């Protein structure tokens, strides 16, 4: 505390002869050994921190080689009223035809991602992993699943084939009953 500038006693009668330019403290005195070392350690710590972050980033791949989420499910006319499990083992999708049209449910339980099975006699999907039950609409009626099954985007090609895109999903009642998640058929 000794090298702090002492406050000058102000005397209003005597005008200051010349204002002394304030010298920044850092320039007034060379950096102390302790400060220098602390700065060094802090920079080293920052370097290690940044290295750790960079290493973590390294673990996130930029390009992944996974199958396309879009597929051709054949002619829309080929589906009768009810749940079709035709594409389940290849594309993990149920194609469901009702009186109004067609929608596609992504067969991934919203609880922890197992594939449920369709039980036609009880009119529900049941998951084999933790016992979640869904209606044909995809709504949860029993078990731990936190939200309804996802519906995938359904389009019809110029040839009349169903084109299903599992990368575009919707599960909110009201939205999921409209295009592109529902294909109205005459």
């Amino acid at each position: 505390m000794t090298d702090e500038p002492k406050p000058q006693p102000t005397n209003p009668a005597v005008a200051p002869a010349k204002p002394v330019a304030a010298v920044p403290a850092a320039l007034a005195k060379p950096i102390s050994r302790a400060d220098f070392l602390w700065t060094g350690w802090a920079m080293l710590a920052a370097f290690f921190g940044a290295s750790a972050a960079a290493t973590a980033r390294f673990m996130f791949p930029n390009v992944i080689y996974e199958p396309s989420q879009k597929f051709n499910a054949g002619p829309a006319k080929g589906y009768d009223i009810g749940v079709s499990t035709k594409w389940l083992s290849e594309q993990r999708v149920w194609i469901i035809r009702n009186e109004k049209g067609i929608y596609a449910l992504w067969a991934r339980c919203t609880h922890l991602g197992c594939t449920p099975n369709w039980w036609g006699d009880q009119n529900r999907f049941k998951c084999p992993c933790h016992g979640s039950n869904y209606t044909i609409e995809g709504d949860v009626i029993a078990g731990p699943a936190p939200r309804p099954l996802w519906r995938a985007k359904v389009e019809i090609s110029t040839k009349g084939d169903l084109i299903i895109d599992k990368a575009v999903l919707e599960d909110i009642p009201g939205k999921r009953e409209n295009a592109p998640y529902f294909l109205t058929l005459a």
Partner: protein
Amino acid sequence: MPKLPTLEELKKEVIDSQIWRSVFRGGVWKDTPRDRSAHIIGNVWLHLHPVRVRKRALEWTYTWGLGGISFALFMILTVTGVLLMFYYRPTIDLAYRDIKDLEYAITLGKLMRNMHRWAAQAMVVGVIAHMVSVFLRGAYKKPREFNWSIGVLLLTLTLFLSFTGYLLPWDQLAIWAVTVGTNMAGATPLLGNEGPMGNLVGAHINNDVRFVLLGGTMVGENTLLRFYVMHCVAVPLVVGILLILHFWRIRKDSFSAAPYEPNEDKVEVWPHLVKREYIAAAACLLVMFIWSIWMNAPLEVIANPNVTPNPSKAPWYFVGLQELLVYFDPWIAGVVMPGLIIVGLMAIPYIDTNPKGVGYYAWSERKFANTGFMLGVTMWFVLIAIGYWFRGPNFFWYWPWESWLMIKAAPPLTWNVFGPNATWRLWCTPNLSAFPLWLGIPLVGGAGLASLVLPKLIQKELDGIKANLGVLGGLALIAVIMKLSPLHVSLVKGAWLIVFGWMHFYFGFLLPQRHIRALDWARYLVTMALVLSTTAVLLKMCARLAFDIKYVITIPALSMNI
């Protein structure tokens, strides 16, 4: 013809040779205490032992050798694992075929795989039993707190090694266990794309913690490679480092926590302890051999990422967790609870201030600690038993004597107690709640807070018999009222309420009130938080199994469902 040397002469010749003496130092072995000490000190492997050890620490019935047995199994796993690596290639196209080759085309391949599989399961049992035995002997207390915590980490890593190894055969068992396991990571609050508040901070399917584990958005080629590297290199390396720390600490903390007696006998570690270690390791190896010749490791059909076997079950030591996932949202059962178990176990030595019962089995002196810990361990194994023996197709409840071919009626519809869309009546239709959130948040929050602090605030010790009878009577009264009410709740459900409600009262209120109300607030609150999260599991199980309650309180906007 020159005379042949006798066996004795030959032995002397070999031992006195420059080669032998350079490898095994020291003069002629006279089996003096000095020789025995020098043998421990002069050997890099053996010097993790002390030179002398108290006799009572060596009794089988004191430790059952469980720590040593766990380590012996780890060594068996290392050797068999390295051998398996010579034939196994971690790619989707080859992994399953290589396992099949190990089974049918490679001499002793099946035996090696069996031994690796069974030793892994035995090690899980060994490590858990080791932990229970250390706990019951109070051997985690000062000055061994930190070593207990390292032990908890080793238990966690043992389970993680099992989990990563589970994927490698690339069969149906593998892919679905790992799909479920990694989706739990995806439900982590903030860090997972399906977890509470995950979307708020920008977690997506291609940047969250699950994505890192999988190396993609689904269990695929990258996942297999990542799990392979973790299983064979990264995690064993960490386990090895922690094991050295663990052993070093044991040696520094005078090897055994057994209480001192005046003028106690000490014996040399060589041969008394080392001999026992060799016997235990040899017995482990023998048991693993016999087990592996007798039983084959399971292998299902090749993995299909689109179709799940029905039912699909986790490896047995995780089935308890799987059963928990039936009652709780993934972020609670899959992230918060395992986290609480690990952190809670590590915290035990720091919250248990009872100076009694260090180094010996002492039920009467450590009633609260032992009861609470054993309640947790028992629940873990009861949940495993339920998941393993009482769950059938669609993970539905099947009694062990019921055929899985029998199709069960659909499970009843579930409802929520507090949440949006309140209907102001009990037993509503699915996705609807009986009462609104503005009522539920203060009620549930208040009840939680009260259970947390009340045992400490009540200064006078409660009369156990009166309190128990009072609560049982009250619960019975509720059960009867529910039966007589227009809801006609069956008496069986009433009995569920009585049993589980009483357990919550006894373990979550009466015992803490009795034993830990004098603890300082910090330790008290941590202990109570752990105790209450245990008994809350019982309450939630009762709510789901007997009353079809899905959530006690649900705030969908935050994905916050309890």
